């Protein structure tokens, strides 16, 4: 048979790029680009170009296995599924339903996440969560309160229509690379771009004004921008009067945040704060883009509120080229949240009465012996969660751990039973991108050996527990159409109709609805009074400050050729070649003081643990700060699990650390 094109969605980040996978004789042999795609115009970052490399990787899990005294033993699916079902049932019987924990996955389809959270709820617990807790829980809290909706207000392509774009805490050039093309297009029209980040990243290369703020001082900076906007009469008084409440309290709060005061807190020169505020305040259409530099703080919810405040007082919501755009990290993190794979929400963000344990709380409950058995679908908390040594100890304490994954991840290594999952191109289903764009990814090839789609695995476990679960993704999507009003019109028939590129954007309330690219056009439909809520917030310093023992501020982030815990990208040779090892960026002055040379091995330590890394000396960060990518197992040994009180997201972005040279020869 000649090569066939199969429409698929990239398995990496939340941009939701489409790619055509070419299949020949049952193997995925090539990629073709999709220039008509509305989010990416066919572009793919390096990760998307390497997406086929994980499919027939020698490390793939190919059979169910159980851990025995002699190591891993291959078992049948029947035995594996019975082991999981029996252990979940007996744990519930002996210790109650809340001794069970379920981790869903932002890498899995909507249907798979819907099924897993449904299984958790039917078992009688709300202890179901996933890594959205670690990336955008603050967005869910902050934007739900402000706008009544926890999602991007405008599509990415809308950035091309903005006159000013404020990018804060997002390194989109590396992490959502196709977004850069829309920003360049805005600049072609004369748009001003402001980038606020502790590091001069390749995203800062796009900036007209760069604001290098100290890690964790975002609220001060954002309040400072509001201060200047109000002082100079740049606020949209009509919008404030007609569409918002809470303005007076913000006006009082903002008076204290003069550019001079904010400069002292953030380290950003006052004149740059003025320039940024004027650019945003005067623009006919202005958009704010943010990411985990905003959310992963003990003040994450406040940071998001401060962003929403800025958009509300300037009337920059509900029109083309405006809005607040949280860039979601994973191909289906938006969808997993929409599907209710969160401790406090049912599908469609209906609140549960008694919220369950979140990702980080599950680890504490496991360590305390309250959580006894876990089912993990495609997540790798040992690498992705903060305070990793604690996570490792907690998971080891469980009576029973089952992991469904594509590879034997650091987490799967701790499991009692490992269930081999089909990879992205070996199954079909829908994914919801950061734009709320729901797209169908078709099956390209058969799963590796005995690997099976996560939906099939969850349905089989559920059936053995006495629940009637469908394992056909189309049937599950029909159930979602009925359960989630915003998805009511996103039927499998529409998503899979030939020639549909770019899926449908929710809310899509009926099967004739074209989808809703821009939210909050006439009203904030899901706030109690239909208005945008201005919620004044005060600057609070991060949980941890540098001191004598740990004198540097460590912040973490991503690099363009790796992805999250690295279980896929570190197994892609063409990606790994560019960044093969963990590094720590240090400023030249710190490097000189500490006696570090470029590429030398160093030990990085925090109050929680230590790891080794290669020194990378750069003036893209300021003196006194350090940066490490979190794709390698060492980084989150160091990070803090101090939580935002509302969103319960850990403060990955600020930890006090110390760096020491490791003498040649290694051990000291």
């Amino acid at each position: 048979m000649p090569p066939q094109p199969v429409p698929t969605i990239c398995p990496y980040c939340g941009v939701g790029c489409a790619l055509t996978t070419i299949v020949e004789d049952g193997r995925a042999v090539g990629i073709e680009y999709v220039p008509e795609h509305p989010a990416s115009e066919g572009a793919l970052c390096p990760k998307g170009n390497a997406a086929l490399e994980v499919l027939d990787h020698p490390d793939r899990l190919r059979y169910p296995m159980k851990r025995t005294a002699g190591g891993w033993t291959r078992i049948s699916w029947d035995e594996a599924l019975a082991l999981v079902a029996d252990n979940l049932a007996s744990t519930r019987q002996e210790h109650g339903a809340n001794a069970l924990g379920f981790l869903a996955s932002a890498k899995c389809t909507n249907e798979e996440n819907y099924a897993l959270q449904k299984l958790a709820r039917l078992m009688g617990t709300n202890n179901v969560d996933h890594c959205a807790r670690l990336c955008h829980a603050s967005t869910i809290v902050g934007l739900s309160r402000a706008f009544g909706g926890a999602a991007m207000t405008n599509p990415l392509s809308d950035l091309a229509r903005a006159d000013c774009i404020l990018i804060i805490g997002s390194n989109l050039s590396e992490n959502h690379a196709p977004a850069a093309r829309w920003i360049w297009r805005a600049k072609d029209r004369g748009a001003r771009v402001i980038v606020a980040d502790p590091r001069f990243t390749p995203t800062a290369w796009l900036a007209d004004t760069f604001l290098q703020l100290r890690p964790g001082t975002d609220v001060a900076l954002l309040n400072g921008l509001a201060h200047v906007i109000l002082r100079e009469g740049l606020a949209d008084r009509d919008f404030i009067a007609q569409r918002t409440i809470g303005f007076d309290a913000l006006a009082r709060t903002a008076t204290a945040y003069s550019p001079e005061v904010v400069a002292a807190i953030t380290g950003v020169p006052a004149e740059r704060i003025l320039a940024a505020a004027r650019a945003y305040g005067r623009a006919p259409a202005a958009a704010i883009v943010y990411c985990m530099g905003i959310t992963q703080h003990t003040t994450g919810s406040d940071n998001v509120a401060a962003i929403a405040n800025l958009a509300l007082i300037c009337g920059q919501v509900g029109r083309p080229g405006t809005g607040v755009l949280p860039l979601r990290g994973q191909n289906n993190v938006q969808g997993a949240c929409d599907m209710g794979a969160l401790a406090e929400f049912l599908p469609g963000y209906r609140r549960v009465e008694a919220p369950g344990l979140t990702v980080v709380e599950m680890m504490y409950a496991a360590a305390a012996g309250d959580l006894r058995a876990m089912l993990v679908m495609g997540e790798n908390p040992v690498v992705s969660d903060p305070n990793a040594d604690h996570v490792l100890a907690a998971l080891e304490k469980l009576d029973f751990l089952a992991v469904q994954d594509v590879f034997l991840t650091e987490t799967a290594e701790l499991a009692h039973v490992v269930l081999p999952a089909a990879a992205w191109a070996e199954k079909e289903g829908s994914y919801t991108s950061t734009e709320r764009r729901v797209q169908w990814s078709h099956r390209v090839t058969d799963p590796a050996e005995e690997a099976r789609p996560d939906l099939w695995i969850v349905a089989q476990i559920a059936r053995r527990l006495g629940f009637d679960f469908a394992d056909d993704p189309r049937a599950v999507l029909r159930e979602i159409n009925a359960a989630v009003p915003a998805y009511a019109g996103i039927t499998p028939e529409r998503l899979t109709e030939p020639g549909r590129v770019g899926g449908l954007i929710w809310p899509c309330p009926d099967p004739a609805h074209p989808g809703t690219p821009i939210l909050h056009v006439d009203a904030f439909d899901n706030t109690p009074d239909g208005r945008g809520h201005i919620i004044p917030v005060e600057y609070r310093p991060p949980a941890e400050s540098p001191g004598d023992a740990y004198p540097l501020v460590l912040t973490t982030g991503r690099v363009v050729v790796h992805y999250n815990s690295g279980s896929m990208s570190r197994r892609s040779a063409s990606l790994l070649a560019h960044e093969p090892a963990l590094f720590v960026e240090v400023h030249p002055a710190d490097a000189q003081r500490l006696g570090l040379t470029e590429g030398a091995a160093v030990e990085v330590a925090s109050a929680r643990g230590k790891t080794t890394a290669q020194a990378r000396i750069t003036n893209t960060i300021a003196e006194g700060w350090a940066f490490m990518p979190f794709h390698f197992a060492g980084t989150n040994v160091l990070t803090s699990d101090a939580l935002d009180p509302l969103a319960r997201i850990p403060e990955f972005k600020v930890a006090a650390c110390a760096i020491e040279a490791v003498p040649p020869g290694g051990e000291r």
Partner: protein
Amino acid sequence: MTRMLYVDYERCIDCHACEVACQREHAGRRNMHVARVQDRFAAPLACRHCDHSPCVVACYADALTAWPDGTVRFQADKCTGCSLCVVACPFGVIVLDPARKAVTQCDLCLHRLDEGRLPVCVLTCPAGAIHFDEYAGYVAPVRRRAALAMVDALPPS
């Protein structure tokens, strides 16, 4: 007019997508090379298909030859693997491929152009920095942008 590969260097965000795409399209041989300068700038570099090509002059085996359509083309079966072209290239974009004892250089994805498809680096570039166009088509938007920057610098009217 001949269509060529043009790079809008200001736009490159150092993401390496062109490199990974090129490597995939050419069975592991990479003909695109992104060079980063002082953590402030990066440039994707590939064969410029020079009019007076130092590599063609250096190649005594006629493995690298200048074609009437303006391309410099490579024939692996004539290559001796001597690397003189590697030394001659002022852009450092001819590399020795040890696996087959021959060099490798950007072929403009001629196999794709023949089928009416653009080179992969052009299609994949997230920033829209790489273009395959005629000279006039490429420079028109660049000149417009340069003019816009001048307007921007004027005092407000």
